[in-house]
């Protein structure tokens, strides 16, 4: 970490970030310099060490092991070049998981987005019990994936409560194998995903709506705009940044989806039911079958796909509104 500070010790560094500089000149400026360096190392050092060892290093390791046929023990010696990657790209099971991930990604946005916006608009009105409502709709999000998976798995199984409910209200003809019928399973998964994560979207949008100044609505109302005109011309455009960030989180989440699928469908059934994802493919073909080199290569492919999509999204969609969060320092 270099510290090229001009002599006064009060001028901002050259990276253009708006930094807070101590306005009071400190006694003994030369000692200030190394002292500051020491403080930076002491305070930021541990976080950087832990972060680099357990986040960055594993990703680099994956890149390394991806080039080997390796069973996970001893040093990796069987160098196979890009073979693992060729196998991945030619494996029809991998094409399936890509399709599933894409399907989940698009449908998550299409299902949750509009519903969550409408609900947020509704709940943003002055109604009684709004804070209680906020707590209740957030509960699915706070419950762990394991519990959600087991609960929904039991409800949707052939002899489960959903079929039982259909039977008891006289709709027995609609009973299905919600989890094992390949044409239905992924829709069941979409229902579960929407159920689990839509509360998060609603809460985000509500927060976004509440940050729009009241004066705008009042001015529009004075000018004679109707409720729906106000929503269309003021609320939705101003909610844009929140929606775009939510969509980003949803996309990344869809690409990483693992827990729910793994718990409900298990590692092998998932592929026949048509719900397998890149992550379950990675676990099934990597750790479970002991092919750590191959699993690492799958991880690298997943990483690259997520990275490319994230960068494209940031470049073309988010660049307008995140002049802070993820791009600070790179301006």
């Amino acid at each position, binding site marked *: *970490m270099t510290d090229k*500070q001009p002599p006064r010790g009060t*001028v*901002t*560094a*050259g*990276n*253009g*970030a708006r*930094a*807070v500089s*101590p306005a009071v000149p400190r006694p003994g400026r030369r000692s200030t310099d190394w002292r500051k360096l020491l*403080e930076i190392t002491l*305070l*930021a050092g541990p*976080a950087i060490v*832990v*972060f680099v060892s*357990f*986040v*960055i*290093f*594993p*990703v680099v390791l994956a890149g390394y092991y991806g080039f080997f046929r390796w069973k996970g023990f001893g040093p990796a010696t069987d160098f196979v070049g890009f073979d693992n990657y060729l196998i991945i790209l030619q494996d029809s099971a991998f094409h399936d998981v890509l399709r599933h991930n894409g399907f989940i990604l698009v449908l998550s946005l299409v299902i949750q987005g509009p519903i969550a916006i409408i609900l947020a608009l*509704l*709940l943003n*009105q*002055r*109604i009684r019990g709004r804070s209680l*409502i*906020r*707590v209740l709709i957030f509960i*699915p999000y*706070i*419950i*762990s*994936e394991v519990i*959600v998976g*087991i609960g*929904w798995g*039991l*409800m949707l199984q052939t002899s*489960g409560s959903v*079929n039982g409910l259909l039977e*008891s209200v006289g709709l027995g003809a609609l009973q299905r194998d919600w989890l094992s019928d390949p044409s239905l399973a992924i829709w069941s998964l979409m229902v579960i995903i929407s*159920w689990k994560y839509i509360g998060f979207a609603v*809460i985000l949008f509500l*927060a976004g709506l509440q940050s729009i100044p009241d004066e705008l609505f009042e001015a529009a109302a*004075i000018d004679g705009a109707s409720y729906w*005109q106000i929503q269309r011309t003021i609320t939705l455009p101003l909610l844009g*940044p929140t929606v775009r960030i939510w969509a980003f989180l949803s996309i990344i989440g869809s690409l990483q989806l693992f827990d729910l699928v793994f718990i409900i469908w298990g590692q092998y059934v998932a592929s026949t039911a048509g719900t397998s994802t890149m992550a379950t493919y990675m676990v099934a073909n*990597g*750790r479970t079958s002991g092919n*750590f080199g191959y*699993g690492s290569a799958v*991880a690298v492919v*997943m990483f690259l796909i997520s990275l490319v999509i*994230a960068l494209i999204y940031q470049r073309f969609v988010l660049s307008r509104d995140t002049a*802070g969060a*993820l791009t600070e320092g790179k301006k």
Partner: protein
Amino acid sequence: MAVLEAPTRPRAKRPLRERQEWGSPATYFIAFVFIALCLGPVIYIVLGGFRDNSQITNSPAGFPNPWNFDNYAEVLASRTFWQQVGNSAIAGIATTLGVVTLGLMASFILARYTFAGRGAMYSLFAAGLMFPMTVAITPLYILVRELGLMNSLAGVILPQIAFGLPVTIIILVPFLKAIPNELEEAAAIDGTSRLGFFFRMVVPLSLPGVVTTGILAFVASWNSYLLPLFILSDQASYTLPLGVQAFASQYSVDTAKVLAFTSLSMIPALIFFTLFERRIVGGLTGAVKG
């Protein structure tokens, strides 16, 4: 258009708002339906624990009749359950302390020091936000194994701290930036060093932000599944999510007991959430909006 009528009764007046406070019945109806959909499965799990297996088989969607407390009592009396609660608590508390301590120290540097590489450091942590643990899990497993931390909670805690840092730092940096410069100057005039300023002023002043990030870290750790699945293979070291799943496959015929076990395991997270709802929601939305 109907709009033309509007100016005659301006909506901007405050008193009107108060009269409107109850809103339209349709809004309540939609809100009610939505909440029922959100809570239905949770209620199914909780009530299912109060039934017995023959009730569940005969009428999968019915109510407990009669109420049966044996399942809950059995789970509460089992050692396995409490051992898993203990493991989850240890992992959660250690992760929270680690994330908060390291995150607060690094955020202080990022928020209040000026140095070359500051932007790069921020980007490094912010980039971590884009990549959840899933992509790194295979090599992470290898790394933890090389460190000899398999089957130990430390093998779960350390990576969780590392992966919790990005959110923590992104929430805390704006928080620390908002501490007025005058305070730091006053402290400097009084002869306090910058480290002294950190411990005496920053730590207490940033407490609300710290609590938010701490709760987020705790709930994430309490619910985490993938990492423990890879690292903990010995039943004695299982955390609750692993325990719940193992229980569910071991007693797959005893649905009622599985439901009782499952609903008991979600109670701590729910209590935490209701106590700190405002902070969790505020923290999440704050993090997202940068």
